[in-house]
Each structure stands twice: as structure tokens, then as C-alpha cells.
């Protein structure tokens, strides 16, 4: 069990220790050590293929769906090793929400999308579902745009709206952590701006790990930054420090755009 074992109040949400991950024979993550703290935004940056997505997909064990994946090392979530046999995947994922790079709403109505999580976990009460939908959509800054068309198909929304719908969908199950894999890469600057503002807002209640290709975005919204390179964590620390006085030459090269 996840929640009774650990101390949910602890400042450290995730403690990753000596994490290695292989796709078949190819190692994608090498000896990763880092800590993610409560109510902070942790940005994960690095060139394409360095293992950013792999890393955050390990945090909610979505990598388990890929048959060839093997891991070693430990990831403690509030003190409980998420690889432990007693941890139920379903429980972990209701505590750790995820937003994907490409908006992936279900081909259902906007309302059905938002209440999907609560519904599959057993909430049937119409009134309660409506309340959850409204709150979640408001938190995702989408309510005003969709409140009159909740029964329309989600695929009628714009890309940016779809992505905020996916965020609302994740928020509807009230997770503690939100993992976001390049949530704005498919969006225009205005939609991106909205989502960045949203992240800043959500930070008060959630712990957020966000993968991004935009240095500016990382610098704008994150408290901590992790720089990955070819499966290794090169540098991890306060965003301010990473972006002003990085310790590693490779970090400096990457953030100043002199890389590759």
C-alpha cells in the first residue's frame, strides 16, 4: 500500500536512488539520483532522446506498459518504494497524475472526459460529478470557455483547450503530484502562456514535474531544474543557479544553445 506506509506530509515527495532503466539492451537511464520536493515545480530539460520522457514515465510506472523495460534502483514516494510488490499501480496513478505531450482526450464529451477518473473509481452521484467537473475545469482555467458546451465532443476543442481539458481530467482525481511531458509543445504562444500561468497557480496545491524543450519556459516556471544528457543526470539544482552559474560545462553549453 502506498498511502498508509509513507509519511504523506514529508517535504520530499520523490526520492530517486540509483535508478537505471533499459529498453531491451539499450540503457536509457543511468544511475539517476534526485529528490523532488513538495509544492515545487521541477523542470526536466535536455536534448531529444536523453531520457526525459522515460524518466517521468517511470515516476508513475507508465513504463511498465512497455514489455521490454527493465529497471534497477529505487524510487521512494513519500518513503515507499514504488517498485515494491505491495504497491498497486492503480493506486500510485491516482496519486500521481500525468499530462501527455500530445493532448489525448477520450472521444467522449467534455464532461465525460473530466469525470472519467472519478467515475471509474466509483463515484456515481450526478451532482457530485458535476461539482467535480466544474472545480477541475476551473482549476484548469477552462471553465469559462466550455461551461455552455459540456456535452460537446472533446475533439471539437482547440489544441490548447484540449490540453487544458487533459489537465482538468488529471486534476479531477485530486492527485498530489502532476507529471507533465512537454505539455505545451503542440501549442501556440497564447495557449502556452495560459498553461504556464496555470502551472504557477497549481503549484500551491500540487507538486509538479515538467519536461520541456524550452529553456525560457524552464526558467520562467520552475523552482528546480534537472539537466539530462544521454540518460545521465548531469546537473540538478535551483533553477536560478542552473541558469546563471551552472557547474557543469555541458549544462552551460546546452542552456546557452551551443549544444549540437
Amino acid at each position: 500500500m502506498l498511502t498508509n506506509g509513507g509519511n504523506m506530509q514529508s517535504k520530499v515527495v520523490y526520492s530517486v536512488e540509483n535508478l537505471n532503466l533499459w529498453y531491451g539492451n539499450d540503457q536509457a537511464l543511468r544511475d539517476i539520483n534526485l529528490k523532488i520536493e513538495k509544492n515545487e515545480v521541477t523542470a526536466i530539460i535536455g536534448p531529444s532522446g536523453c531520457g526525459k520522457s522515460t524518466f517521468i514515465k517511470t515516476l508513475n510506472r507508465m513504463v511498465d506498459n512497455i514489455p521490454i523495460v527493465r529497471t534497477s534502483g529505487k524510487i521512494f514516494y513519500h518513503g515507499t518504494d514504488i517498485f515494491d510488490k505491495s504497491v498497486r499501480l492503480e493506486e500510485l496513478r491516482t496519486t500521481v497524475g500525468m499530462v501527455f505531450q500530445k493532448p489525448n482526450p477520450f472521444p467522449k464529451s467534455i464532461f465525460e472526459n473530466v469525470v472519467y477518473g472519478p467515475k471509474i473509481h466509483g463515484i456515481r452521484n450526478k451532482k457530485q460529478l458535476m461539482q467535480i467537473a466544474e472545480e477541475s475545469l476551473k482549476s484548469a482555467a477552462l471553465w469559462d470557455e466550455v461551461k455552455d458546451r459540456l456535452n460537446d465532443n472533446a475533439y471539437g476543442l482547440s489544441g490548447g483547450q484540449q490540453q487544458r481539458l487533459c489537465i482538468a481530467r488529471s486534476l479531477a482525481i485530486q492527485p498530489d503530484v502532476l507529471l507533465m511531458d512537454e505539455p505545451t509543445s503542440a501549442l501556440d504562444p497564447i495557449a502556452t502562456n495560459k498553461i504556464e500561468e496555470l502551472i504557477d497557480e497549481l503549484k500551491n496545491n500540487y507538486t509538479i514535474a515538467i519536461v520541456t524543450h524550452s529553456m525560457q519556459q524552464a526558467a520562467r516556471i520552475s523552482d528546480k531544474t534537472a539537466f539530462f544528457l544521454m540518460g545521465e543526470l548531469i546537473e540538478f539544482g535551483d533553477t536560478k543557479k542552473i541558469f546563471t552559474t551552472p557547474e557543469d560545462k555541458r549544462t552551460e553549453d546546452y542552456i546557452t544553445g551551443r549544444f549540437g
Partner: protein
Amino acid sequence: MGYQDQLITSESEVNEKFKSIKKSPVLLNKEAWNKRMEKRIIMDKVARKIFSLSTVFALVILGILFYRIGVQSAGWLNLKFLTGNLSIFPEKAGIYGAIIGSVWLMAVVIPVTLLLGVSTAIYLEEYAKEGKFQSFIKTNISNLAGVPSVIFGLLGLAVFRRLFGLGSSILAGGLTLSLLVLPIIVVASQEAIRAVPNFLRDGAYAMGATKWTTIRTVVLPASLPGILTGCILAISRAIGETAPLVVLGIPTLILAIPESLMSDFTALPIQIYYWTLDTVLTPEYANLAAATIVVLLVVLLLMNSIAIFIRNKFQRRY
């Protein structure tokens, strides 16, 4: 090297700079191309003719078929024919019993094949690990779709009629036809399930959904149109099949209207078959057969339109 260094200032310089890419070293004989082009354009026209003629050919055959059936059934297809009981006298004969028999058959075939077929497809696509076993099963299911229907009739005779003692009941006939069309539904459902993009599944898993919940709430609704298409194909096949029923020993002259799964019955294709056979003795049977074909087509269209209606209602949008 800075940007400035690359600026080109005079025309001669341009020529100098692009000399290498102006002319390809391989000389292309455009004249020869143009000559051959004539030929290719003619070929294109010929191809177009061949394809359109093939379509026209099929349509003409279909037209002749409809015409003959129409002419032959004219005057015979009336309310008395639809609601009357079977009789050896052509003027008195009606096919009410056969219509009800066919509907009963489908009432067995549709739920049985959908349940078994979709479950099999779900297992093969979502649960079974990729590997030798899975591909072995998949190949065999596809092969099964090509087995002649008489063989399924023999199987039904041996298993359902003899072993299970179901006689020549609706249940025996329905189960035999179900076996026959099962591969169609399995293959169609597999394809529909495989076409559901993984990002939708991921969306569900990331919300803490179990595999079954994901299948039930995301995969099945998204693949429903494809599954229903398979269902349409399967029904169309099952409702017109004669051979398996003949082998099962379904009698032709049944006067009682079937009332339950265990009732004896006759079905539309059986009537068509026997009436066609007996045309030698009683020429009017040909008209009865034609009229029955029209009824069979109408029943088929009705059932298909229901499936198409449902399919359109759930048409995927992503």
C-alpha cells in the same frame, strides 16, 4: 564564418557560385521522355476503362439478377405470402414460418458471435503476449474464415445435433451458423481494436484505470464502429447460408411457427433451396423462391441498417 561573408554581390559571382548545381552531370533526354509519355497517357486511359468496365460488369449482373427476381416474384409477393403458412400448393404457400425461423436464428447468432468473437479479439489484442502462440492462433482464425460452410454443417451435425442432442432445433442451427461466422467477427474486431491509438489507452492507465476498465471505457467504445462492421458482414453471411442447415437436416415443410430455442424451424435460405430444387415438379415454385429471395434481401437490409445506424452514432472522432 559569419553571415556577412556569404553575401553574394555580383551576377557573375552568382553564376560562379551556382555553376555546380545548374546542370546535373547526368544528361536527361526530355525528348525521349515526351515520346514515351504519349504511351503512358494511353495506358492510363486503358487502365481507367478496364477498371470502370469491371465495375459496370458487376453492376449489370446484379441488375439482371434483380430484374429476374423482380419479374418472377411479381404478383407472388403479397401479404398472404408473408403471413401465410407453408403449403405444398404454390397458391396457398406463405413463408411466415421461415421469416420467424430466420429471425430466431439471428437471435442466437448475433449474441453468441458478438460475445465470443469480441472476447476472443480482446484477449488476442490486449492480453495475449506477442509471440509464437499468439501468431499461431491468429493465423488459424484467419484460415478458419476460409473453411467451406458444409464442413461447419458437419461439425454442427456431429457436435450440436448428435453429441449435445439438440436435434434440428433453432439452437443447433444458430450455434452452427455462429461457428461459421465467428472468424469474421474475430478478425474484424481485432483490426478495430488494434486501430485504437495507444495514447487513448495511456490516458486511461494514467488515471489509475485497470486493464479491463481501460478496455471497457476506452478501447471498446472507440472500436465499436469497426466491430459493428464485422457484425454486419457476419450477419449477412449467416442469414443467407444454406449448406450447413441442410447438412444439419433442417426440415423444409414445417407448419408450426417456432416458439422457443428448442423448436424445430425452417429458414428463408432453406425455402429458397428446396423450392428451387422442386421447380422441376412444380414450376410455380420458382416464383415462390424469387419472392423469398426478395424477403431475405429486405430482412438483411433491415438488420444491416440497424447496425449501420448504431455505427454512425458511435463514429470515432480523434
